[in-house]
């Protein structure tokens, strides 16, 4: 494989190797918290924070952590940062923290984060790992934002809590519930596939 430049390392997470649309990782929080744009954004930022900090530590200690216990070590590092993010959200934005519920602690088992540690941070230097983490986090946040915007606009007629649809707009109740999440994500993935197929052709 060709050596990537620093910028490519950053950009790949946003589209080419987008964690949700292409790698299909971290789907649980993606589906669960995207009922409102605000929640999607908060979730994306919390996950990006955890991803950045863990990638930094893992890449710093990559030569010290013994191979056999590396997964356990990564998980403890991730769990620590998740606790910090969780307390931070609970202290500063208690409403969002409440509506995200158990999905903030569930960042621990978000496969994107563990996956990046295993596939990237444990093999690359700090600078590159941070760029990679930032790109992946941004890609994750963007998809969450798009998904939650679609669901919030169609499901409750608002965007970030503001009314944006016309007066007589009938809300699609199903969009803010479970089926809406699955179907919207299915369409987004199909859309990404379609665009990629077009670009290659």
């Amino acid at each position, binding site marked *: 494989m060709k050596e990537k430049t620093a910028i490519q390392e950053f950009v790949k997470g946003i589209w080419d190797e987008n964690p949700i649309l292409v790698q299909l990782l971290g789907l649980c929080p993606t589906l669960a918290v995207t009922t409102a744009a605000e929640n999607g954004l908060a979730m994306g930022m919390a996950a990006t924070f955890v991803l950045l900090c863990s990638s930094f530590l893992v890449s710093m200690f990559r030569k010290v952590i013994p191979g056999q216990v590396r997964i356990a070590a990564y998980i403890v590092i991730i769990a620590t940062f998740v606790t910090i993010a969780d307390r931070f959200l609970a202290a500063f934005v208690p409403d969002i923290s409440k509506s995200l519920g158990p999905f903030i602690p569930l960042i621990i088992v978000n496969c994107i984060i563990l996956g990046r540690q295993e596939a990237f941070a444990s093999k690359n230097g700090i600078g590159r790992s941070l760029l990679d983490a930032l790109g992946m986090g941004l890609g994750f946040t963007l998809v969450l934002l798009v998904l939650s915007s679609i669901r919030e606009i169609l499901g409750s007629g608002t965007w970030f809590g503001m009314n944006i649809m016309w007066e007589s707009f009938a809300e699609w109740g199903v969009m803010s519930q479970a089926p809406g999440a699955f179907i919207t*994500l299915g369409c987004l*993935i*199909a859309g990404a596939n379609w665009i990629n197929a077009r670009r290659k052709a």
Partner: protein
Amino acid sequence: MNLLVIFIGAALINNFVLQQFLGICPFVGVSKKVDSAFSMGMATTFVMVIAAMVTWLVYNLILVPFNLQILQYVAFILIIASLVQFVEMFIRKVSKPLYDALGIFLPLITTNCAILGLALTSVLKEYSFTETLIYGVGAGIGFTLALVIMAGIREELELVDVPKSFQGAAITMIIAGSLALAFMGFAGII
């Protein structure tokens, strides 16, 4: 009666996969064949029930008395990871055929958010020990049910002409959406 409500609630009404979005990764990854979906479901149920009990004990007997709730996440994930390792060794010793059947699914269970989600929700809902146990069994059965239904549909799907962009994950999501819609029908039963 209360226990029955918890059981049905966890298995059907608030089905872990289809209504609460926990354990989506194995749901998408391992639902290609009915056999393996069933094995995965059983292995997960097994770990879920044990994990629910152990995390309940650790939370209520160690973390709460010492005022260490802040360590909850780190403690839970360590318990689950070591539990999965332990269960793996135990099954290998006791029943070789079962071990071969479960194969690679066992280690994957560590990163199944349904397990951690279960432990966290039962703490959040302040369930008693028995309630936690029933909740775990119900959630496990609900998980298995969703996985097996999905695998059944996907086996049929192989014969169907799906539009190119929708092949793979996209169509799986759409089907999961329809299943979730069907499961919403259970909402009225309790």
